């Protein structure tokens, strides 16, 4: 039930917003924030109740949704999702509070969409039914597209349409594949219950699995986004309002990698070995490509957007790397889950900070800044911390994920690791270039009226950076919860490989 509360609270909040007076923005702001905080509290409660020792799904609830068709409202979480849910509720609260001053028009609609988006995303993370998942997966598009298209920048409509069409085209085939899987069901009856399907995944032939895996992965890769399906991301990020970018980078991209692990791999374990080389190659290309392209952007948000391509490349690399015998790397996989959270925090923070600047100066061009650390020391310090987190500096969260992913990758595929490791050089280069162009150098007088962060913004930044440090110092707190889940996924693949090789 507690999971259902997570889903329902934002919806109720969104509906309640309708009845609040439109003019009283203060009230709407506070109300929306209160709703997100309630969800943060629920998710923390969830985390505290989570039983580290037991394997499998927890807090499950299974109600027949369409009984005649074996479609269920089946929800539950495991180590894969628990931190992503925390991340979602957390970032949603931050997104709402960070919009207080940034959004001035149609605040009511904006906040309602934010809340609906939260529901959709949480829905994806807790669904244990193929079609329930698909419902939330697609439903998450609408609020995001509207947020970008309504409250975004100059080219917001182009970006919004591109976002939705790209994603929809990607997931078009996934629905068909999902229906095919559903139709296989448990071998007798069709069913969309994920655990049942996973238990019967061996019934589907290897060739069929390859095909279906591709259809799923295509949808997920667009979302991640994996090179070369990433070009919607810079457009969407540049145009999106700050909170939109925070959620987009922080959570929405994870839907892709999360779903790879939750659905694509367990449902089609026999296909993983076939597609792994391609995915690993694309991930590595993405790491280098995203970093190189980020290097020459003149818009801060674009730079961060391309950095996301690179960072998410690490995640995909960690998930799919395997050796010639098809052995997956537990280390890389667990670290990939961790890295999802890390990227959400660090990139979310970067976007937030860029938003702080944008709110004051209404520009994101590097050339408009320069030397502002003198003027805004607190902002500068947080920006550098966020940059360090993004660049994978030890002590902060990014390092843990990247290092363990690379180490796991190296043990399976040294060549991929070799190339991917160069990504950290490029990461340093582009992030520090951004720091240098914004904060360092002779002071650009255009920023004379720039004011430093207010207490609310400092509070938000602290809320970002404290978890970053925590993960940097005590990653095992998270890993010990993540490990059993990745272990079970990896062993599914290992078993499948054994069957296939026989």
């Amino acid at each position, binding site marked *: 039930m507690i999971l259902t509360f997570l889903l329902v609270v934002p919806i109720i909040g969104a509906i309640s917003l309708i009845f609040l007076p439109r003019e009283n923005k203060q009230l709407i702001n506070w109300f929306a924030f209160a709703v997100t905080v309630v969800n943060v509290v629920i998710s923390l409660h969830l985390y505290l109740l989570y039983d580290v020792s037991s394997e499998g799904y927890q807090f499950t609830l299974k109600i027949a949704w369409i009984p005649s068709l074996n479609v269920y409202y089946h929800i539950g979480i495991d180590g894969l999702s628990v931190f992503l849910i925390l991340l979602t509720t957390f970032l949603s609260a931050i997104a709402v509070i960070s919009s207080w001053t940034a959004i001035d028009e149609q605040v009511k609609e904006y906040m309602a969409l934010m809340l609906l988006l939260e529901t959709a995303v949480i829905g994806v993370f807790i669904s244990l039914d193929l079609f329930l998942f698909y419902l939330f997966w697609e439903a998450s598009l609408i609020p995001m597209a509207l947020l970008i298209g309504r409250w975004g920048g100059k080219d917001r409509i182009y970006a919004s*349409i591109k976002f939705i069409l790209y994603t929809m085209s990607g997931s078009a085939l996934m629905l068909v594949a999902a*229906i095919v899987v559903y139709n296989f069901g448990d071998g007798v009856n069709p069913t969309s219950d994920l655990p049942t399907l996973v238990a019967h995944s061996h019934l589907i032939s290897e060739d069929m699995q390859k095909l279906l895996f591709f259809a799923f992965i295509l949808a997920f890769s667009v979302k991640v986004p994996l090179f070369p399906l990433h070009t919607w991301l810079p457009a969407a990020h540049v145009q999106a309002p700050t909170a939109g970018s925070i959620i987009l980078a922080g959570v929405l991209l994870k839907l892709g990698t999360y779903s790879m692990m939750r659905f694509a791999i367990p449902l089609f374990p026999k296909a993983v070995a076939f597609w792994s080389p391609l995915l690993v190659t694309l991930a590595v290309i993405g790491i280098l490509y995203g970093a190189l392209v980020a290097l020459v952007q003149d818009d801060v948000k674009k730079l961060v957007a391309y950095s996301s391509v690179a960072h998410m490349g690490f995640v995909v690399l960690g998930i799919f790397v395997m050796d010639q015998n098809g052995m997956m790397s537990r280390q890389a996989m667990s670290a990939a889950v961790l890295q999802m959270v890390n990227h959400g925090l660090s990139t979310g923070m970067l976007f937030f900070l860029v938003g702080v600047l944008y709110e004051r100066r209404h520009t994101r061009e590097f050339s408009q800044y320069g030397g502002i650390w003198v003027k805004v020391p607190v902002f500068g310090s947080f920006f550098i911390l966020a940059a360090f987190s993004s660049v994978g500096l030890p002590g902060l969260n990014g390092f843990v994920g990247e290092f363990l992913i690379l180490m796991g990758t190296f043990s399976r595929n040294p060549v991929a690791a070799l190339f991917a490791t160069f990504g950290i050089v490029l990461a340093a280069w582009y992030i520090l270039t951004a720091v240098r162009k914004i904060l360092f150098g002779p002071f650009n007088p255009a920023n004379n009226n720039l004011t430093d962060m207010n207490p609310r913004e400092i509070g938000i930044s602290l809320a970002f950076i404290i978890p970053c440090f925590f993960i940097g110092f005590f990653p095992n707190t998270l890993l010990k919860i993540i490990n059993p889940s990745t272990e079970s996924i990896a062993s599914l693949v290992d078993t499948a490989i054994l069957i296939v090789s026989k």
Partner: protein
Amino acid sequence: MPIEFPILNFFALSPIIVVIVLALIVMVVDMLSQDKTALGYLSALGLLGALIPCVTLLNQTKSPTFQNMVVSDGYAVVFYIIFIIAALLSILIALTYLEERGMQQGEYYILILLSTCGMMLMAASTDLIVTFLGLEIMSIALYVLAGFNRRLISSGEAGLKYFLLGAFASAFFLYGVAFIYGATGSTNIHDIGTWFTDNPSYQSNPIALVGLALLIIGFAFKVAAVPFHWWTPDVYHGAPTSATAFMAVGAKAAGFAALVRILSISFGGVFTVQWQVAISLLAVITMTGGNIAALAQKDVKRMLAYSSIAHAGYLLVGVAALPPTGDELYRVQAVSGLLLYLMSYTFINIGAFAVVALLEKRGEIGTKLSDYTALSTRQPFIAFVMLLFMFSLTGIPPFIGFWGKWYVFWAAVDAQLSWLAAIGMINSAISAFYYLSVVVQMYMRTEPAGDEAVPIALPAPIVVTVAVTAMFTLLFGLWPTPLIDLMSLGMFG
């Protein structure tokens, strides 16, 4: 020689009879009363009443009657419900729509009711003669409805186009019936089916094959499948919006009702692969053609016309998934899918047309995309429901349109037609572009509205229509179970 009196089970046909009687009553009242709006309400109430026997019939087993000319099985009854709802909602739209445009006439409601009768006959008929009669009753009423707005030449033009092309297509349909009759010696669809199973050597009889082809063409015309769709955009565009709403869902549903019954019963065991391929190809070009042409539209009404072509394509996917008779379980899937699709499409599409009717300016036809600019600030409720309809038409969950598509594609997957489902989904993605463009106008463009800022009147009946359809779209999108259970009752007797 004793005279055998036919067993006439009037109860089995009670919904049809109610609607016919209703039409006659309205006709009489029309002569006596000056309050034409009241006629509309009367018709609406009567249609609500007609739902009652439908509900009773749902729980009955099949009851063929009138010398096996018609059957009142679950399939027919579910279609009755669809038609009645379509008629009811479109009448609600018409009430003020006609009034405002000075064409409030009793005939309108009579024609709607008669047309509904024709559709119901098509759904119930098990004999090609009745099918033909139903088809013509429906069509002729629709020809007139299309040309109902006598103040606008475009409405008359729509009527003429519909009429001429419709008659042309009818001729082909009839020729097809004649061939089939010639080949099998019967017009009863069960007999035809039996004859083919009994005489396998005739399975490649060219006369029967050409007859089947012409039959399919006749229905393809009615459901607006490419390449027999040419009338559709012009007629939908020119006809009064309330009538467009009705014909877009009613005529389409009726066409599919008859086509599916005939194909699965008469041709369920013969030529299956052949017509499956033909229907699949039709489905592909219909989906694709409709969607792609819709991309270029600047007028939302016309865009919806093209979109209705595309939806005919998705429905054809379901038809292609109809497997041979005997495999009852699988047919249930395809038929349930089609029914679900049509039911949801009825609500969504009428809702969308209701919004068009609200925004349509007097003396003009259709609504330009620019009429929707910033609608979200001018009319948040209308904009919101239109957003629901657009996303639902795209097939994005959690709206009911998704489940229709999902079910139909499941049937296709089960019939080994995954490739068709895949093409369907790709088409869905393409269609998102033009549906989205309405949303973009309403929600994302904020340019000063200019002369569009004319206040939009919100007549109660239309608001009720959009509210009901929107509720349906959303609630059944989230919880489709009751609807799906209802559809599973919609099986052939």
